[in-house]
């Protein structure tokens, strides 16, 4: 296994060097074929006319998520766009592909490094987590430490693949992106579940769960995303929050977490991590000051997704089987945050009522009850799991 990872890493490095070298011998006109507005051979506007001569079909990346960002646009349209039709341009438009060089223009033509991908895939968006970064709270008291990609971060355990030196491209090939697929490799393309691991011997786990439902060690979760609109800059003085791309807006969150994420069902019908994206609120400060509406709940949407925080280990059995909150069935006796009293329009973030998964569904109650019942098979496996673990825990500790 270790050797295989080293091989992949070496291979990635080798082909990266090749990418730059491959263009050295080419005549200028091989790439710079046209003049005028199409003079940039890598520009999206010309559908990368200079590049696709050789890299045929790669221009199709502009038609998919990174080029179109249609999912996000649709979300904005049905949420913040209802109050500000220019919201997208003001707050979201900094991250979309303008050409091949966005990703391949680092120190000559090259395959993108992790850092290059993270120019866009940072903050709450998958990518930063791969290097062990979670967004900090928005108040300036918490905005401390090193800043990368325009943001400070909490130091988290990086993904094992990142620690082994693998770049994003190892799983997200250019071809897969051009084809509109999320990745070129799934977990099981490289990993065969080891049946010596007790959890892997439970058929339901392998059949019904994404690998990363268990192996995602943590995930950034933002509960209650607020966009505050300031029509007068002086009104911002009392809000000591991190400035965003638009001077007209400040962003804040009711609560941020970065522990093991809740679970739901993804579009493949498998159990997968889910996270709020977004439980969105809007306040126009000027309107609110004149007794108008504020903290308007625009959407309470979750998305099934793959946090890039893979570890060999996972949570313990009760982390799922005895944890109704993780499936948004929070018992009232365990409730801490009193959203109703804060006028948040939801009883709890961890109750399904009033919320939805935009690309999947929440787990239904009957299934959770089945899953959490202590059947003989569960009990047997549970006891075996803890026995194995405890047999290998030493009695002494090092102070």
């Amino acid at each position, binding site marked *: 296994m270790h050797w295989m990872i080293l091989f992949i890493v070496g291979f990635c490095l080798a082909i990266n060097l090749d990418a730059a070298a491959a263009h050295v011998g080419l005549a200028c006109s091989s790439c710079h074929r046209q003049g005028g507005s199409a003079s940039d051979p890598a520009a999206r506007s010309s559908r990368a006319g200079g590049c696709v001569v050789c890299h045929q079909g790669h221009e199709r990346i502009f038609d998919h998520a990174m080029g179109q960002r249609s999912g996000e646009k649709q979300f904005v349209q049905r949420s913040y766009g209802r109050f500000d039709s220019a919201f997208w341009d003001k707050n979201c438009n900094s991250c979309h592909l303008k050409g091949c060089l966005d990703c391949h223009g680092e120190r000559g033509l090259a395959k993108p490094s992790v850092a290059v991908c993270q120019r866009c895939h940072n903050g709450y968006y998958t990518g930063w987590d791969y290097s062990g970064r979670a967004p900090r709270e928005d*108040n300036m008291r918490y905005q401390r430490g090193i800043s990368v990609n325009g943001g400070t971060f909490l130091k988290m355990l990086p993904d094992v693949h990142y620690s082994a030196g693998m770049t994003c491209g190892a799983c997200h090939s250019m071809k897969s992106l051009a084809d509109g697929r999320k990745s070129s490799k799934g977990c099981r393309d490289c990993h065969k579940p080891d049946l010596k691991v007790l959890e892997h011997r439970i058929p339901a786990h392998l059949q019904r769960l994404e690998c990363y439902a268990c192996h995602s060690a943590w995930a950034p979760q933002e509960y209650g995303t607020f966009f505050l609109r300031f029509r007068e800059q002086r009104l911002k003085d009392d809000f000591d929050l991190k400035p965003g791309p638009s001077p007209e807006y400040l962003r804040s969150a009711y609560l941020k977490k970065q522990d093991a994420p809740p679970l739901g069902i993804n579009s493949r019908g498998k159990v997968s991590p889910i996270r709020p994206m977004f439980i969105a609120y809007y306040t126009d400060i000027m309107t609110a000051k004149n007794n108008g509406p504020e903290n308007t709940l625009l959407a309470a949407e979750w998305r099934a997704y793959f946090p890039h925080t893979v570890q060999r280990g996972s*949570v313990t059995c009760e982390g799922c089987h005895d944890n109704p909150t993780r499936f948004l069935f929070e018992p009232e006796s365990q409730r*801490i945050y009193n959203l109703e009293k804060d*006028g948040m329009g939801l009883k709890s973030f961890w109750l399904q009522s009033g919320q939805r998964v935009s690309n999947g569904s929440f787990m239904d109650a009957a299934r959770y009850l089945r899953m959490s019942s*202590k059947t003989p098979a569960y009990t047997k496996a549970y006891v075996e799991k803890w026995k194995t673990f405890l047999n290998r825990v030493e009695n002494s500790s*090092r102070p």
Partner: protein
Amino acid sequence: MYFRTAGHGKIHIILLLLLCLPIFISGCQRGVKQSSCVRCHKGIEHVSKTHGDCVSCHGGKPLEKVKEKAHQGVFGIANPEYIGRWENGCAPCHRYQFERMKSNLMYTAAGMIRNTQLTWEGEDGNSYTTHGEKQFDAAGKPFSPKPVAELDNLSGELYRKFCARCHVGAETTGVYAASHASGCAACHFPWNNEGVYAGNDKTMKGKAGHSASHAMTSLPDVNVCTRCHNRSGRIAFSYQGLYDGNNSLVPTRRGEGGPVMASGARNLTHITPDVHFAAGMECIDCHTSRDVMGDGFAYRNMYLQTEVACEDCHGGAREVPRYREISRENDEALRESRNYKRPASFGMKMIQTSKGRNYSNVFYQDNAVWVAGKKSGKLHRSKVITGTPEHNVAGHERLECYSCHSRAVPQCYGCHTTYDKSQDGYDFIKGADTPGAFSETEDYRMLHPFPLALNQRGRISPVTPGCQTFINVIEPDGTQSKTEYVAKFKGKQQLRFAPFYSHNTSKKAVGCAECHGNPAFLGFGQHVVAGNSITGTLICERSDSKPLDGFLTMKNGRVNAYSAITRENARTLNGAEVKRVLSVNLCLPCHEKARDPIYRKGINLRALDDTLHRRLLSGH
């Protein structure tokens, strides 16, 4: 006979009342007929029924008609923090309370100063208090601590510039929702959030730095306590169901930060309150006057001064609450409860505190323990848990009640403190700007789950960062001489956690599987379990392997502890204890409830190998 004389008695009473009428209506200036005080301060509220003329509390010259002359000799008029203000104003009548206050930790701040020392440079062999007054220790021996003004190092600077505002000898003004008077008035006069007088005296109306009304509140409510107890442990917030979490300033209220604002431009959101608060209990319904005003002896830390304990009212696993009948007319409970809505009376069986003294509002009657709201008079029946199976779990005798019965435990991870010598900062003790200003940033805040460790009583208790201080020092020339430095504690560089009762008590305890099955409760922080290793996922910036939100790691079955638990004899759980806690998971899937008889005498793991268990576990 009685009825015959009743008519004459009535006439006598009416005559007496008429004779006394001028005294009653003169109120504040009682006994000083020509007092000029109320000529200017017209409409000022009567301080209380029992307080006399203005000068007896305030000093001054009541016969002078010119303001400047009349105010000559007013106690502390130039310096509200002058101890003579309450020594001359309050102590002549309240000597007993005044003398106790002089040793009270809320006045001396000895605990805060010592803890600050331990966090930074360590102890230097001296005891320090805010003013350095002579005291008597818990054994009654006199000693003379030094004034904190003489603590000439970073600890002293930090205390004086960051912490000194919250001791009852200091007046705090201009701080939203945290302004208070100095001395006795800090707790016994009602201040509003703005710290502005809002009563009927037109000369004072709208003036900052005064209580909202001149009518004193002999029994402080929860808002009074919150004016100070809203930082560090934040117990007054947690008690009321408020959380100053991440300073997100949302949801907004009328276009401003919200939903509730607190001092320091912090916003508060609502969480489930403490079960006692929800029942209508104030802080003083549990805390005795000796807790909050001291008992005349100087203690090193508040946990030594405090005498209330959960077990006093709820009983322990094996011992019921203790009571003592009021059989003397000078019983402290009788005197203390005079202002209560429901005063104690002779013959009542008063419940005793952990130090064996009588509560003045908790009593035993009709086979039950009752707590009477001191202000409200409301009676609360206290559930006694003694002898219940779920409170007699073998091994749990080492647990503090609030290890299981806490819901939210505020935990502030990563306190990054910068001491900038190129800037001036206000020294609240010296009363002047001096070189050196402090500022803070923070990493992360959370409420649940919370780690447990052994406290100074050898009991397992929630712990919270106390503190995870990372020190940065900027020299006068702008160079940085210390960067994210972790100070030494007990001889080595390490972060610290402190035993802590968050005051967010929940009737429903943390579930057995929730605690035993989640190593975060043992101090591993948020984590993953792989093989026989437990790895933290939120990592300290100064290390690649140590979690920020915990103090234990397990690598290949071996437990490593690397943060200190403050207080004497306190420590993290060791490897054997961690193993024992996790071993309970072998029983929990079948024996889910704490009242299951197998937990009475300690679990026998060998039972898993007997015929019955093997048959059950094989599913046959």
